[in-house]
């Protein structure tokens, strides 16, 4: 039996395997007729180097990369852990789980939320510009024409990623009930924190 060659990692910048092999794309007759009616041929590149695979203008080049990577699996597992912790928190009293009390009714949470996440989420900072944020991305999408528009969806994706990391930050910080309290200025990792006790009970 003839053995099929394993798919190799595609070089960046090629839209599809047909282009990489210098073959013509299997486009339909109607697509050909539409493409022939226009001045730009299917499969060529625009001035920015993006590959034009159809009659639409793509803002960013399309890569054929594997979706499920080891890194994705790692972060997926981390996200699953965060969801488990969130579910445990939902069915647990807030006090023993978070280390907060009437004297420190907000603990580190509110300052972290207001001072850090709001800044990341809404400020049009260089960080937000690069890595995106839902609010900053929306403002950019609303107020800026064409050029920024292409980055909107990547901003949205990265803002979800940032939110996930924020959730993990809170999960980790929940093991440090002293963090942020005025009388405990250093970060103290409490092995008796409820999160760890509950995890160790499994």
């Amino acid at each position, binding site marked *: 039996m003839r053995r099929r060659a394993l798919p190799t990692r595609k070089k960046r910048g090629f839209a599809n395997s047909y282009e990489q092999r210098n073959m013509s794309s299997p486009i339909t007759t109607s697509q050909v007729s539409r493409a022939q009616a226009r001045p730009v041929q299917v499969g060529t590149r625009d001035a920015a180097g993006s590959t034009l695979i159809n009659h639409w203008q793509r803002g960013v080049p399309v890569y054929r990369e594997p979706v499920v990577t080891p890194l994705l699996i790692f972060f997926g597992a981390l996200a699953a852990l965060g969801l488990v912790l969130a579910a445990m928190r939902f*069915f647990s*009293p807030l006090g023993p789980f978070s280390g907060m009390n009437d004297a420190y*009714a907000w603990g580190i949470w509110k300052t972290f939320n207001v001072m850090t996440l709001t800044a990341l989420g809404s400020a049009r900072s260089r960080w937000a510009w690069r890595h995106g944020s839902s609010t900053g991305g929306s403002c950019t999408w609303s107020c800026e024409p064409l050029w920024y528009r292409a980055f909107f969806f990547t901003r949205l994706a990265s803002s979800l990623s940032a939110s996930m990391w924020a959730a993990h930050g809170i999960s980790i910080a929940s093991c440090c009930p002293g963090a942020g309290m005025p009388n405990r200025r250093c970060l103290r990792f409490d092995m008796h924190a409820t999160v760890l006790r509950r995890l160790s009970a499994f």
Partner: protein
Amino acid sequence: MLYDNTICTGCKACMPACNEANGLPPDTLQTGGLWDMPADLNSKTKNIIKLYKEPEGPGFAYVKRQCMHCLDPACVTGCPFGSLKKSDFGAVTWNSSLCIGCRYCEVACPFDVPKFEWDKWNPKIVKCEFCYDRLQKNEQPACTAVCPTGAVIFGKRTDLLAKGKERVAAAPGKYFENRVYGEHEAGGTQVLYLSNVAFSKIGLPTLGSTSLGHYATKVTAVIYKWLSGPILVAGLLGVVIKKNWNRHEAESAAHEKETGLREQL
């Protein structure tokens, strides 16, 4: 409510009466489950008698702590969903169906009165509500009803304030600073205090005569009047979006005309 700590004997009769009237369980954390002995106001204690002892010497004083029922409460201003409100009889009451558990009231209150049920899966805010149910039935709050010495009495604020000033005038030098605490503090409170020791020593903070909520409402009253602020900002944003959208569509049309490629977002 007027509390005079020179009359209070520290019998704590008001505490179980409060618990009974409000259906609160005893706080037995410090007694190994034997009897009610809270260390301070907490989720099981809306009213407490505390003892202040001089660091040196035999001097001591009792103090009754509960919600001060401010004339302009900071907790009501801070509550984002109107869960806390200034009700009839001046009582600051809490509505569980509106509360989102944000604990803004805890942070806003200058007297550290609202408490949170940290050990409950579905927690509530716990604070004295002046026995609002009893007031509606023309009854006194439970604590004033059972006080055997009359150290804490109930009545209209103006009457109690006049009575407090009478006591001060009748015994000059007996009371700290010869004045009634709560007349002006934080814009005025409906729980008034007469004390023979410094108010700060019995846990009553030094506050100005302006209510704390006023600092917030004087700003929000302008910004949100008739929703003018949000409408103005939304209108400006809409104009900017429309302008940029038109510009973008013109650029997109020119681009399509030049290359034959339609925009894909």
